C-alpha cells in the first residue's frame, strides 16, 4: 500500500504529543501536529489528509466542544477516518455516533498504532476497490435488469455507474424507495432502489394487471417485494464472489422527490437506470464494520 503523505494529529497534552511524534515521525515524517482546535483548523485549511488522529483522554474531550463542531463541519463533509487514541467509555459514547471513528484504547504502543493505522487505511482503500470492481457492480446491475424484466416486463437502459464518495450529498431523488441492509463480515451498508412515481406505477400495473394512477399501500408493498427479490438475487451472486452477505428484510421510504439517507456513512456505488416512463436510481453504500 502506498503510504499517505501525512496525517494530522490533534493532542492538547504536550507529553503525549511528544510520544506521538516519536512514534509517527520515522514512518510519517510529514505528519502535522496541533495542540488546539483553532490550530488544527488553521493547519487543515486546503489540505487533504487521509485520516485524523485525536487524543481522546479525559478531560480534554469533555471540555472541547469545538472538537464535535469540527467533527460535523470537517469530517462529515470530507468523510475521512478518525482514530481516537486513549479512548474510554466517555469518548466512545460521544464519538461513537460517527461511523468513521475508530477507537484505539489506552494501552497502545508504536507497534499497535502502526498496525491500527494500516488496517484503517487499507480497509478504506479495499472498500473503494470493491465498489468499483465489476464483480461487485455486475451482480447488482444484472439483478435489477433481470427481476424487472421477468416480473414486470419492464426493460430499463443502464446508465454509467459512478462512485459517490463518502459524505458527498446524494445527487438523485425519487418518489418511492426500497431499502435493505447489506451486511457482511467485511462491510456494513445498505442497498436503496429509488423509483420515480410513473415508473413505480408502470411496474406495479404490469406485475399484477391493475391500473393504479398513484402510489398507495399496494404499490409500496410491490416495491418492497421487488427490493427483496433484487437483493436476494444480487446477494446470491455476490456471495459466490466470497462476500458472505447476510439475509435482511427491506423497508420503504415514500414521498414526492425525496432523497435517501443511508444509515451508514461510506462510499456509495450509484447505478442509474432509465426507461420510457421514468427513472430508477440504485445506490449501494458500504463502510467498514
Amino acid at each position: 500500500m502506498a503510504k499517505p503523505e501525512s496525517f494530522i494529529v490533534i493532542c492538547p497534552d504536550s507529553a503525549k504529543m511528544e510520544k506521538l511524534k516519536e512514534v509517527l515521525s520515522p514512518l510519517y515524517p510529514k505528519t502535522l501536529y496541533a495542540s488546539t482546535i483553532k490550530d488544527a483548523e488553521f493547519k487543515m485549511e486546503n489540505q487533504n489528509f487521509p485520516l485524523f488522529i485525536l487524543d481522546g483522554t479525559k478531560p480534554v474531550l469533555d471540555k472541547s466542544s469545538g472538537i464535535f463542531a469540527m467533527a460535523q463541519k470537517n469530517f462529515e463533509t470530507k468523510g475521512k477516518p478518525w482514530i481516537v487514541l486513549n479512548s474510554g467509555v466517555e469518548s466512545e459514547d460521544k464519538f461513537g455516533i460517527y461511523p468513521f471513528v475508530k477507537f484505539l484504547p489506552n494501552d497502545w504502543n508504536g507497534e499497535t498504532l502502526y498496525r491500527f493505522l494500516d488496517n484503517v487505511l487499507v480497509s478504506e482503500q479495499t472498500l473503494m476497490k470493491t465498489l468499483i470492481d465489476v464483480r461487485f457492480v455486475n451482480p447488482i446491475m444484472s439483478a435489477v435488469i433481470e427481476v424487472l424484466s421477468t416480473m414486470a416486463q419492464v426493460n430499463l437502459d443502464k446508465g454509467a455507474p459512478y462512485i459517490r464518495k463518502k459524505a458527498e450529498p446524494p445527487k438523485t431523488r425519487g418518489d418511492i424507495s426500497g431499502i435493505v441492509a447489506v451486511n457482511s463480515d467485511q462491510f456494513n451498508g445498505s442497498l436503496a432502489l429509488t423509483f420515480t412515481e410513473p415508473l413505480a406505477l408502470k411496474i406495479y400495473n404490469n406485475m399484477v394487471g391493475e391500473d393504479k394512477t398513484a402510489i398507495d399501500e399496494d404499490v409500496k408493498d410491490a416495491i418492497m417485494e421487488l427490493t427483496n427479490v433484487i437483493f436476494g438475487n444480487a446477494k446470491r451472486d455476490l456471495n459466490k464472489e466470497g462476500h458472505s452477505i447476510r439475509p435482511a428484510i427491506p423497508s420503504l421510504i415514500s414521498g414526492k422527490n425525496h432523497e435517501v439517507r443511508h444509515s451508514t456513512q461510506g462510499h456509495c456505488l450509484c447505478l442509474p437506470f432509465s426507461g420510457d416512463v421514468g427513472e430508477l436510481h440504485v445506490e449501494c453504500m458500504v463502510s467498514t464494520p
Partner: protein
Amino acid sequence: MFPSDTKVLVVDDFKTMRKIVINALKNCGLENVEEADDGATAWPMFEEAAASDKPFSLVISDWNMPKMQGIDFLKNVRAHPAGKATPFVLVTAEAEQSNIVQAVQAGVSNYIVKPFSPADLKTKLEQVYAKVSKG
C-alpha cells in the same frame, strides 16, 4: 395440470406476490384459492381444512416470512397426517444451494426461485402434478 376444482393455499407476506401467484393460478384454470400472509396464519388454516372434508390439495408458500418461515410451515404440513403427500411448492428469493437441499430434505414437492414469470410457475405446477400423478 391440476384439475380446476383443486383447493389451493397461497402463502406470502407480500400482498403483491400473492396477487401475482393467484393471477397465474387463474390463468391455469385454478380459481379455488385461499391466501395467508404468513406461515403462522397459514398453519391453522391448513389444520382446519384438513379436519374438514375439504383439505388443501396444493400449497404454494414463500420461504422468508416474519413469524413462521415457509420451511417451518412445510415441516408442520409434512408432520400432519393429512399433509404427508400434499403437493407443496416453496417460492424463494434465496437461491443458495444450502436452502434448496434443506427444502428437499423437508419434503418439498418443488421450488421456484424469484423472479419468475407466470409461465415459469405453470411449468413448475405441471411438473409437480406429473410427479403426484405417478404416485
